[in-house]
């Protein structure tokens, strides 16, 4: 969020944190920062593993296999619905994401099934559980984005960036100002699902070939596209330098075990939160921030909920850590 405060202030009266570099007056460009956070570390990682030959399985399309798969999937409607509901619910919670949804859904599928012996050996119920939940997360993640203007994951953060660039401010007012747009977003998610499914049926064989493109060709081409993306928004080479710099820093952080998505969320949410905070202070004409945010019932409830969810996350992590320790201890014993 501090990165987002670099450059001109929202009131447009002062420049902040330029650290003596006049070219930083314009601040950091969102697209460049997002490319730096999400694309560059992936390319560096790709290059790091370029010497190991990836195992690419051959695609064998047997006649009627797709229909058989669809029939098998539809043979488990309850599992499909349960996993979709779990995925949607987890998708709504900011910062949790797909991996948690797939694990929880798989766990539930195992718990609800009478015959548990086949799980972990290619049982279709396990595949249905994890895949349905993983896909349902995408729709769920759109709820806080469109409804509250809060991107809860990396992809929704990028979507939020795209909305802002198009002059749209996601949040409750979007429903009032442009309800057609909100419903078109919903329908586009459904349409995207159908198109992806059809595309996967038709082009699966071709897609497997992309994995065979040597990294020595793929990596520089991705960097080239990143440079184009970072430069094109403001025509500044400084943005490209920042993109690569941020990418290298995020790669190092990810190697230490830190997740890069919160940095992206901070950069996106910072420019939204600051003007909103200044507006609230100006409208309320209160003498201090405490009066505005803690003495008003709505904001006080939201703050309590925020602290509560953070405390819950810490408590859950501690509990998981303890359980893991006990498991390791038992294994050694």
């Amino acid at each position, binding site marked *: 969020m501090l990165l987002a405060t670099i450059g001109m202030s929202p009131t447009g009266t002062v420049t902040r944190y330029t650290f003596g570099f006049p070219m930083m007056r314009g601040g950091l460009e969102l697209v460049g920062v997002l490319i730096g956070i999400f694309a560059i570390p992936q390319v*560096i990682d790709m290059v790091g593993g370029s010497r190991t030959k990836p195992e690419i399985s051959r695609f064998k399309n047997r006649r009627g296999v797709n229909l058989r798969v669809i029939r098998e999937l539809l043979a488990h409607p309850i599992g499909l619905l349960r996993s979709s509901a779990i995925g949607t619910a987890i998708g709504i919670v900011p910062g949790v994401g797909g991996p948690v949804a797939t694990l929880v859904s798989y766990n539930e599928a195992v718990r609800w099934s009478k015959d548990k012996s086949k799980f972990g050996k290619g049982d279709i119920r396990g595949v249905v559980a994890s895949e349905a939940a993983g896909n349902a997360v995408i729709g769920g993640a759109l709820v806080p984005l469109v409804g509250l203007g809060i991107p809860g994951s990396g992809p929704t953060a990028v979507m939020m960036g795209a909305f802002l660039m198009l002059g749209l401010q996601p949040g409750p007012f979007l429903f009032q100002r442009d309800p057609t747009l909100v419903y078109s977003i919903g329908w586009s998610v459904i349409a995207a699902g159908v198109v992806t499914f059809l595309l996967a049926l038709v082009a699966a064989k071709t897609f497997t070939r992309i994995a065979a493109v040597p990294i*020595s*060709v793929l990596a520089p081409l991705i960097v*080239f596209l990143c440079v184009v993306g970072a430069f094109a928004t403001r*025509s500044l080479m400084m943005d490209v330098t920042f993109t690569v710099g941020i990418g290298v820093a995020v790669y190092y952080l990810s190697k230490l*075990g830190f997740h890069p998505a919160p940095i992206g969320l901070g950069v996106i949410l910072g420019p939204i939160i600051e003007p909103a905070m200044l507006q609230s202070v100006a409208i309320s004409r209160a003498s201090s921030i405490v009066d505005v945010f803690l003495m008003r019932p709505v904001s006080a409830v939201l703050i309590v909920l925020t602290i509560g969810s953070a405390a819950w996350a810490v408590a859950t992590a501690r509990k998981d850590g303890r359980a893991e320790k006990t498991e390791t201890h038992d294994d050694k014993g």
Partner: protein
Amino acid sequence: MRKRQKPTMTRVRRSGGPEVSVDLLSGLALAVVGALFLGYSERQWVEDWMFPIGAASAAMVIGIVLIGRSIWNPGRRVALLPRLGRSGLDMSVFLVVSALYIFLARPVGFWVVSAAYVFVMSLVFAAKRTWRWAGISAVVSIGVIAVFYVLMVKIFYIPLPRSRWLPFGF
């Protein structure tokens, strides 16, 4: 009887680089960033500095809490210098060549340097460096960059760095 070792914030791995507590590392990073931003903040225009000062102070406070927690209980540790081996060398070469690419893009010409960059990279990281592969790389790099040139400059009119001395702004 062996005496139980007291947990420490840092330790040296048997296999190499030092390991450090994640809490200590996060705490130090947050405290340093918070202090840096607070140091560069001004108190003159309250409205313009309210938010960054608040965020920087929060970062500092959380950083100090994490440092305190790491002293009390170091918790999970990570290696400060991840062992990368051969891939570390590959990544360093990749980053140096990429830095050169960005540095030379404007003075030499973006499209020419881009083609050269793709060509050099495909040779450096090739599984087998043969004349045949060099030929394929040259064709692929020039061909792909030419396609992107037409797509971005002629069709989408995306403003990209233009060379001052080469024809067509290459």
